[in-house]
């Protein structure tokens, strides 16, 4: 548990990241994702509860844990007046890579992030996507056993986001354990083996994306469009018939309509998705 004055940021979160998997922390802004990340690097100290990272007890042994973790923070904190390569060089020292292995570590990170031909560029000359790739590459120079990615694609164009997904996917394929926070549902759906949905500092659901969808939103949903009053009526009727619904802003989604042919409302049918689960579990309005 972590409190800031009267605000409890993380409360009773039970988080288990099996080795070699990618776990996605999915939650709206303010759900406690970044606080969770800071707790794992002991930059925030829990008020209650136990934390163990890679077999090390936090906060006492956090330094040993940090040596084997890579962190790509949400806020870009690269040294902007240095080159790509210099940024990586600094981190080979901070992560105590021996002199003999430094060159190779830098090359491997450059290659992984596809920045080999930008090695001599100053960071402030790079595009947003390249900077984010460098931020992730920097977290990988020491071949960490666990990588913490805090909102790796926030604020990026869709094309650039895809590049980063490819990078994370490659990392996952190598067997690196990843804990990633995101509020992009598609990102969690594509990259995470296990998704943990957070709301108000608590885990409200855990499972593979497919299991979560099946459990909470069923297989098929119906989209009903119409004027606000029609939508309100449709919502009331679907609820009265025992369906769960959610608003999308322009329509009402009636969930779990498979196997209810007679009673199912008319509308556009589509497959249920993780967004249905997310909104259902974290509430329709963010407060």
């Amino acid at each position: 548990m972590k409190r800031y004055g009267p605000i409890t940021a993380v409360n009773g979160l039970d988080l288990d990241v099996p080795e070699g998997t990618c776990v996605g922390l999915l939650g709206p802004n303010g759900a406690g994702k970044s606080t969770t990340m800071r707790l794992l690097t002991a930059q925030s100290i829990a008020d209650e509860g136990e934390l163990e990272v890679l077999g090390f007890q936090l906060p006492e042994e956090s330094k040993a844990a940090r040596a084997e973790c890579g962190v790509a923070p949400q806020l870009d904190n690269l040294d902007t007046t240095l080159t790509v390569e210099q940024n990586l060089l600094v981190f080979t020292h901070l992560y105590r890579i021996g002199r003999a292995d430094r060159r190779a570590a830098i090359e491997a990170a450059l290659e992984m992030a596809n920045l080999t031909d930008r090695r001599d560029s100053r960071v402030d000359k790079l595009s947003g996507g390249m900077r984010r790739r460098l931020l992730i590459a920097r977290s990988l120079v020491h071949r960490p056993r666990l990588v913490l990615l805090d909102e790796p694609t926030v604020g990026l164009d869709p094309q650039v986001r895809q590049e980063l997904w490819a990078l994370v996917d490659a990392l996952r394929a190598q067997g690196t354990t990843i804990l990633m926070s995101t509020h992009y549902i598609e990102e969690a759906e594509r990259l995470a083996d296990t998704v943990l949905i957070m709301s108000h500092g608590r885990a409200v659901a855990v499972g593979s994306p497919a299991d979560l969808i099946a459990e909470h939103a069923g297989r098929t949903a119906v989209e009903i469009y119409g004027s606000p009053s029609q939508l309100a009526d449709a919502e009331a009727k679907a609820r009265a018939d025992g369906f769960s619904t959610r608003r999308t802003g322009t329509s009402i989604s009636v969930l779990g309509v498979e196997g209810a042919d007679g009673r199912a409302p008319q509308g556009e049918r589509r497959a249920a998705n993780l967004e249905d689960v997310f909104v259902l579990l974290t509430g329709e309005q963010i407060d």
Partner: protein
Amino acid sequence: MATRASAKIRIGRLERPALTGVLVREVVNFSSYWRSATFSSTVEPTIYLLAFGFGFGSLVSTIGGYDYVEFVGTGTVATAVLFSSAFPAMFGTFVKYNFQHTYDAILAAPVDTEELVTAEALWIAARAGVYGCVPLIVAMFFGLPPAWGMLTVPFVGFIAGYGWASFGIMAAGFAKSIENFSYIISAVLTPLFLVAGTFFPIDGLPQWAQVLAQFNPLYHCVQLVRDAAFGFEGWIDVYHVAFLVAFGLLMWRLAIFAMERKLVN
């Protein structure tokens, strides 16, 4: 989290690899801004030296048996040390914490706040030791005779610079906004800077000011540099060194306390 008993790294305090990591970051960064840092750290005290040396020097030719240029030339070493340590420490720390979020990146690595603060202070102190020599070299062009004792000046600058760097880091640790530094500069640094025996000897001041000057680290730095240039005075200089070391140790611990409060919550 995944568990695997791996070869545990030593969990120690003030580990050398951690200090080295932070120092390497500073040294590599310095390659991108050394010109401006060197400019401000050397030109400012040189201007003081020239302005007072010529302006005041035309009114007073000797002070305490020294040529006025010799008096000011040795005195402004302490000014150069102060300017190249307290100020970069205050502003640099604040910027790295608030705007660049550098310390978040460093503390996510196997580096603790204590190591971070220590390495930053060591780096600034080393720079202050070098920059502190500039006024002495300039003064030599205006007739300050070289002396073997001057070879100790970089070390004096380093010790005093370590204290001032830690003072600056502590100030940044406690500051809520960058405007808070105005209070520290006006109420702490400027008076200390003026009542240090740099431009005029403190024995002309009222008794209370002379007593206060004894608690001014800058005063002890000035005295040490002057003795290095004109001849050491035995135990008195040991006392000056001891005072600077004590100042450095106290500020160092306070800086760590202030930054821990700020960085780990």
